[in-house]
């Protein structure tokens, strides 16, 4: 790797910027050789920006609230909220730098203390003399490390001293490292300051939104869409897409949730199982827009609605995750035949009467004693016994009469319709006698009675038979109907 001193670095950076690319701290990490770098301050991009910001924050915190322009402070809030990821990236850069430089003195420390801030604090305290400084600064160490951690560090430090394998760092080198530690701690402190300030102030501008999703994410969302007013007019389905950096090439599949924007990294979404994340995202984004609208209208300044929304979402998600109840199979009811509750009544009796056997049919099924049964033949030459319904068996008063209950019926409205049709001349086929009869059953009945008394006695719908062009005389007509009934019964 090329040795980069301060001048080379700035030249390198200038070259890098002149390519027209926006460079971030992460780019720097990959491009700069930390082992040979002399002064980490030169790399720090954020420290220059932060200084005025911190001054302004302390100025704003000191001055009276009423004297500050709301809009200006709001814009400022949104702007500085964006610095915190930058600061975080730079902290990890400096952490790397310290690790690389300090490892020759105490190799195991970086694996024992992984937190950048704690690591920097410890390195600053230990310096070159591990054992002596450990005892000297034990109280200070206790303030940010657990006693178990301290024990482990002490053990490995004394081991390190005994083995004498380490090389002591030069004064110059140690100063560089301590400078870097200071810078890291300062950056961390300013990050906390900014975050605290943003959350304290943002809860004044958007109390409900802040209590729903927290100050950091609310500020991020607002800065992405350009303010509270814009956020309140954003459709809730667009909220998860805000800040989505995931690139999915056309034709490539994707796994998991498509839109991993700012909201995706909210702790509520992160701690929920993957299966419910989409639903949680939807719920949360819906409520975010509502909360933004409430804040815009300047009602509920104490943020209680935001808290209420959050509770709602949490309970809903909890309910969603409850496994379905395991209800066993529902057994079938015992198949017991119950007696019909329907007994009788005028109407029902009349209805049942329609399906009764007529007296004539009954007579046909009976045989006269000692008399020869009358027999007729149907169209197919089949013999049909007439029983007691024969011509000779009953005459005069004792003659069997046909019942009228099971006669073919026509509803009143149908009869009226047909009658109307025939009167208006819009009837079916007026020249056809049968149709006329059909249209006016009374006329048909009259005709039938003229034809034969016997037939008219019980059977009135002769027209059907006429349609069939049966070459029967009136008497055999009478029985062909009872015939078909009998066949049905078989």
């Amino acid at each position, binding site marked *: 790797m090329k040795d980069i001193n301060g001048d080379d670095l700035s030249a390198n950076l200038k070259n890098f910027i002149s390519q027209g690319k926006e460079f971030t701290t992460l780019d720097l990490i990959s491009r700069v050789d930390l082992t040979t770098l002399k002064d980490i301050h030169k790399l720090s991009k954020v420290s220059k920006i932060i200084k005025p910001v911190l001054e302004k924050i302390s100025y704003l915190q000191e001055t009276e609230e009423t004297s500050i322009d709301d809009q200006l402070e709001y814009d400022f809030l949104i702007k500085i909220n964006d610095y915190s990821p930058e600061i975080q990236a730079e902290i990890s850069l400096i952490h790397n730098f310290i690790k690389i430089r300090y490892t020759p003195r105490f190799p195991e420390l970086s694996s024992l203390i992984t937190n950048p801030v704690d690591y920097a604090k410890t390195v600053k305290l230990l310096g070159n003399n591990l054992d002596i400084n450990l005892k000297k600064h034990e109280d200070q160490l206790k303030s940010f490390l657990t006693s178990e951690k301290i024990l482990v560090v002490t053990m490995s430090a004394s081991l390190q001293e005994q083995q004498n394998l380490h090389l002591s760092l030069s004064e110059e080198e140690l100063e560089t490292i301590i400078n870097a530690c200071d810078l890291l701690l300062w950056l961390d402190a300013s990050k906390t300051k900014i975050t605290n300030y943003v959350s304290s102030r943002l809860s004044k501008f958007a109390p409900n939104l802040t209590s729903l999703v927290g100050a950091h994410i609310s500020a991020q969302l607002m800065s992405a869409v350009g303010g509270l007013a814009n956020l309140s007019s954003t459709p809730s389905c667009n909220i998860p897409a805000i800040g989505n950096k995931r690139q999915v090439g056309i034709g490539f599949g994707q796994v998991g949730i498509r839109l991993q924007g700012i909201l995706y990294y909210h702790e509520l979404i992160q701690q929920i199982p993957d299966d419910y994340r989409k639903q949680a995202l939807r719920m949360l984004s819906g409520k975010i827009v509502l909360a933004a609208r409430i804040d815009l209208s300047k009602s509920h300044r104490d943020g209680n609605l935001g808290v209420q929304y959050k509770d709602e979402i949490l309970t809903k998600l909890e309910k969603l995750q409850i496994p379905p109840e395991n209800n066993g*199979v529902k*057994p079938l009811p*015992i198949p*017991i*035949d119950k007696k019909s509750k329907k007994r009788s009544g005028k109407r029902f009796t009349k209805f049942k009467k329609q399906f009764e056997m007529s007296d004539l049919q009954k007579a046909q099924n009976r045989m006269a004693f000692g008399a020869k049964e009358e027999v007729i033949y149907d169209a197919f030459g089949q013999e049909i016994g007439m029983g007691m319904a024969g011509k000779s068996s009953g005459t005069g008063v004792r003659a069997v009469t046909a019942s009228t209950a099971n006669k073919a019926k026509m509803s009143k409205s149908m009869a009226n319709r047909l009658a109307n049709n025939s009167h208006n001349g819009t009837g079916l086929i007026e020249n056809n006698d049968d149709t006329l009869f059909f249209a006016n059953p009374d006329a048909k009945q009259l005709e039938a009675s003229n034809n034969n008394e016997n037939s008219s006695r019980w059977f009135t719908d002769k027209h059907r038979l006429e349609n069939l062009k049966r070459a029967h005389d009136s008497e055999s007509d009478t029985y062909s109907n009872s015939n078909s009934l009998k066949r049905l019964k078989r």
Partner: protein
Amino acid sequence: MGSVFLPHLKSGWHVDQAILSEDERLVIIRFGVDWDKECMLMDELLYSIAEKVKNFAVIYLCDINQVPDFNQMYELYDPMTIMFFFRNKHMMCDFGTGNNNKLNFVLKDKQELIDIIETIYRGARKGKGLVVSPKDYSSIMKNRGGTEI
């Protein structure tokens, strides 16, 4: 798997007790052997409906090799036979197969089996000894020994 979950009757005494002890429900006993193909199919079907019909029928399995006491009396010569009992009375059912004493063919439909059980239960409650199956199974018997249509 059905045969694992359904209760087995281990001896002739057990079979008798199972039939005698039940007063309100139909006792259905599958005679056969667990490893037989037909029995396996039928056990699966029986197990799947056992919970549904538990209000009016109870299902047992009986190994005809382990309990040979009834083989002659009930003519248990088929690989799989199902018999129905109600209040210590053998219930007959006309399946159209010619054998009214037992069900000795494999059904495929749960609902058909439930319908048969319900019909037998109804008849039994009315004191009938023989009922007619809601569906005619004569075509199944026609193909006995070959593949079923």
